[in-house]
């Protein structure tokens, strides 16, 4: 997954983990379609296995007097063909043959292909080159044509048709399995097995094969349907099963000329192939979905244009202030697999016109989700705003119509994101990407908008801006890309810029330069700023006020100078210890031991308690309120109150 939005929703477990077979089975069974397909196939298989014991007439016995009898004729449930042979009997025996051929072909081609793929990837170098060039050569062919050529050379027969189908499908397996194996080959457990002196064969059999098995199963289950259809096709052309023996394709082939007079002769085997293929495809899709780690992690749900809002959300008790931006009791959560992650849990703050406010915290503290909630940009599903109010210039944004939000986004509230390599569209020039927001909100024509884009590029310090406007994101350096991000944010002279760790990916010097530039331009426009960072040092340079976030809540708020000089919350104190002092390398800074709690299982009381040196029993007793510790300075800690009382006593 692209880790869209950098939200700390723990989705899939470790990528290398093998799907548990119980889990796979559960997911498969949950898909009604897959189960229906499996049921259909079971019936078909049971029927063809029972064929010798069923009271069927001989499929090859001709009866010219009763040729081309319609279905439901006495003695012939499905009618007869052009030689008077019983169609019910023929279709059951034909299905038996088609299924057998399909299963054998799939088994053999997956075995041979997987073996080639594993060997190529495991031994690498010359072996790999040799095998994969061969595979490439075979895949340069339209595969049905290759099958045809092989049958043409060997001569028509069902065995040759099957052989041809096997050969043309081997490359697909080889390629898929090689891809899966190559990524495993470098992994630790293979290296460990090598160090332990295990033989290559043993490593392949015990370590590699079990891990690439899901790939083999997925490829096989999605291609067995093709193989049945392809073999039927060859028989249809008269190149497979030879009369009087007929598989389903052969039956269709001989019915071809009867389409005017007796269409049912073709309909019977046609429907049989259709049913088998539907069954196989449903099961194949079910297997693929059950084994696919991406789908396991909650699926490829389409992300809507605006964050979903809970209809029955609680409204904040406090009335909104008249600040530029007033966030009250915001709750944003993620729902996945029956769990709820409370990423933002009752957050309130405000931003006055022209002011710079910092949100600081570790990753997963909810600062990014808070910022994205402002313009409804939290990915949904799985995100949703469960409560609170966000007022921007007096207008309520939570639950506002999409069109109204779209008029504000990029216009009055502009965003600047982390890592512009993924946040800029790789296929459009940066000029196009800047000018499209200008055109959207200022109603300029393409030329005027592009001219303005060039001006903006110049303002953010890009040299040779007219030339650069024609570049694509990948052609720029990280610092230049981030300047482009700034240009997009500044394009419509917004009232508020929301910057989410915009310089984290840059080296220290470039970071300082981009920040200085951003601040200068912001002041020129008189725009307010919400700046998100994990780095207290950067916040200190840019912001007037700061809110420290931990596990979805604000734990300390105040003017930057106050918080820096008199931090009141133990977490803030630890965070400040992470800020490198001059002359001290960043790496020597002691990180905070332990991890923040997962927001789907927040402890009662203070979420920091497990990591806090000062924790006492009262910390975990219940919700802890913000306590004022100075002017416009407050912290959410029971010991702060103690400390205050001690000071007062």
């Amino acid at each position, binding site marked *: *997954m692209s880790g869209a939005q950098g939200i700390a929703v723990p989705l899939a477990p470790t990528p290398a983990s093998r799907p548990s077979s119980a889990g796979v089975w559960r997911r498969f069974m949950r898909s009604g379609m897959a189960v229906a397909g499996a049921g259909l196939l079971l019936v078909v298989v049971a029927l063809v296995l029972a064929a010798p014991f069923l009271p069927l007439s001989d499929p090859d016995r001709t009866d010219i007097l009763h040729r081309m009898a319609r279905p439901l004729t006495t003695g012939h449930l499905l009618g007869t063909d052009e030689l008077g042979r019983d169609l019910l009997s023929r279709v059951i025996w034909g299905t038996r043959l088609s299924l057998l051929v399909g299963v054998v072909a799939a088994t053999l081609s997956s075995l041979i292909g997987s073996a080639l793929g594993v060997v190529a990837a495991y031994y690498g170098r010359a072996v790999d080159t040799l095998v994969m060039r061969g595979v*490439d*050569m*075979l895949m*340069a*062919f*339209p*595969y*049905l*044509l290759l099958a*045809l*050529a*092989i049958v*043409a*050379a*060997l001569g028509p027969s069902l065995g040759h048709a099957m052989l041809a189908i096997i050969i043309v499908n081997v490359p697909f397996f080889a390629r898929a399995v090689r891809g899966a194996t190559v990524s495993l080959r470098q992994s630790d457990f293979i290296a460990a097995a090598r160090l332990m002196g295990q033989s290559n064969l043993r490593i392949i059999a015990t370590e590699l094969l079990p891990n690439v098995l899901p790939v083999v199963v997925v490829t096989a289950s999605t291609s067995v*349907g093709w193989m049945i259809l392809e073999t039927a*096709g060859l028989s*249809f*052309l*008269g190149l497979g099963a030879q009369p009087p023996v007929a598989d389903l394709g052969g039956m*269709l082939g001989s*019915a*071809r000329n009867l*389409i*005017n007079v007796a269409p049912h002769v*073709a309909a019977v085997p*046609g429907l049989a*192939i*259709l049913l088998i*293929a*539907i069954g196989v*495809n449903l099961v194949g899709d079910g297997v693929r979905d059950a084994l696919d780690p991406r789908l396991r992690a909650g699926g*490829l749900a*389409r*992300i809507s*244009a605006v964050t979903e809002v809970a209809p029955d959300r609680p409204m904040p008790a406090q009335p909104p202030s008249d600040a530029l931006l007033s966030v009250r009791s915001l709750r944003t959560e993620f729902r996945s697999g029956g769990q709820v992650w409370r990423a933002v849990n009752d957050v309130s703050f405000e931003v006055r016109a022209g002011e710079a406010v910092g949100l600081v915290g570790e990753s997963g503290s909810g600062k990014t989700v808070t910022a994205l909630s402002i313009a409804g*940009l939290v*990915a949904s599903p799985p995100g949703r705003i469960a409560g609170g109010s966000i007022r921007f210039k007096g207008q309520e944004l939570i639950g506002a119509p*999409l069109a109204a*939000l779209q*008029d*504000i*986004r*990029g216009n009055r509230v502009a*965003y600047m*994101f982390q*890592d512009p390599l*993924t*946040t800029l*569209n*790789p*296929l*459009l020039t940066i000029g196009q990407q800047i000018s*499209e*927001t200008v055109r*959207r909100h200022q109603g300029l024509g393409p030329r005027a908008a592009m001219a303005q884009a060039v001006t903006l590029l110049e303002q953010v310090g890009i040299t040779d801006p007219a030339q650069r406007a024609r570049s694509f994101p*990948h*052609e720029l350096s990280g610092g230049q890309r981030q300047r482009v991000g700034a240009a*997009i944010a500044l394009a419509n002279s917004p009232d508020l810029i929301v910057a989410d760790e915009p310089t984290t990916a840059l080296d220290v010097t470039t970071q300082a330069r981009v920040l200085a530039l951003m601040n200068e331009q912001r002041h020129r426009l008189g725009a307010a700023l919400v700046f998100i960072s994990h780095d207290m040092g950067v916040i200190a340079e840019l912001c007037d006020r700061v809110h420290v976030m931990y596990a979805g809540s604000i734990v300390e708020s105040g003017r930057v100078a106050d918080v820096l000089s008199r931090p009141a919350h133990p977490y803030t104190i630890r965070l400040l210890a992470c800020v490198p002092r001059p002359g001290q390398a960043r790496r020597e800074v002691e990180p905070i031991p332990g991890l923040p709690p997962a927001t789907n299982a927040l402890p009662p009381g203070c979420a920091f308690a497990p990591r806090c040196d000062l924790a006492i029993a009262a910390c975990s007793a219940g919700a802890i309120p913000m306590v004022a510790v100075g002017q416009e300075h407050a912290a959410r800690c029971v010991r702060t109150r103690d400390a205050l009382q001690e000071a007062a006593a």
Partner: protein
Amino acid sequence: MTRFILTRLALLVPVLLGVTIIVFVVMWLVPGDPATSILGTFATPENLAKVRSELGLNEAMPVRYAIWLTGVLHGDLGQSYILHRPVLDELLDRLVPTLLLAGASLALCSVVGILLGIVAAIRQNAWPDRVITLVVLLGVSTPSFWLGMLLILWFAVRFAWLPAGGMQDMFGPGGPGEIARHLILPTLALAAVPAAVLVRLTRTAMLEVMRQDYVRTARAKGLREGRVILRHAFLNALVNVVPIIGIEAGYVLGGAVYIESVFQWPGIGRMLVNAISTRDIILVQGGVLIVAAAYVVINLLTDIAQGVLDPRIRNA
């Protein structure tokens, strides 16, 4: 861009060489004496000897390949001993109908497949998505040759709207209108499966792209959903869909064999089936080679299309 295209063209050479090797090797899998299988069991010893020396059958395999390849490079694909005419002439007569049918099907399946894929993605799990998913399931499960027969049954036999086939001469009287009328049903039959495959892959590609950070950026700029989907999401999805169109070209060229047989279409596919039943090995060899070459060229075109779309690919 020019450099990108030139590189791709240069890479074409080994691929085409590989194709000739495979065609050559496969054709000499023929059991028994090739000269006998070409001329039939009643051939005179003189004729057998003539064929043997023409094809270099007395030489070693690599020498034979070299002789054959030299011929191919000079436009000499050999002689059909059944039709008594040069293989190349026969192929050229039949290439246009096949390319017409394959091209029409490829165009149809691309347009329909991509459009429905987008609709299914942006209406995910709503009724349009469910209907499309069902149709796609039917599409990938129906053998194209049976679909062709059904189309004939309904539209040619029952309603008599369109001809059931029998297109004999592409350049005969009737002109383009006549060709188009004959083209509709086989094109539908041939396009159904690849269209269904493309719907699936486009849908998945769209859903994947819609999760990318740059789509969020586009929304953060306040762009309308139409623009977000078409210019930001779809354009990126297309980069992944274009190579699939190339792969589907392979399906269409191969599937043409069935469809041409069902609809009596005067193309290479039907010629191949006839040639196989008459054991006209040389003709089969030429037909397979020319269709495979067409496939390689189509894949070159999709490669280039990908480069046009994606600056990272063309500058790589």
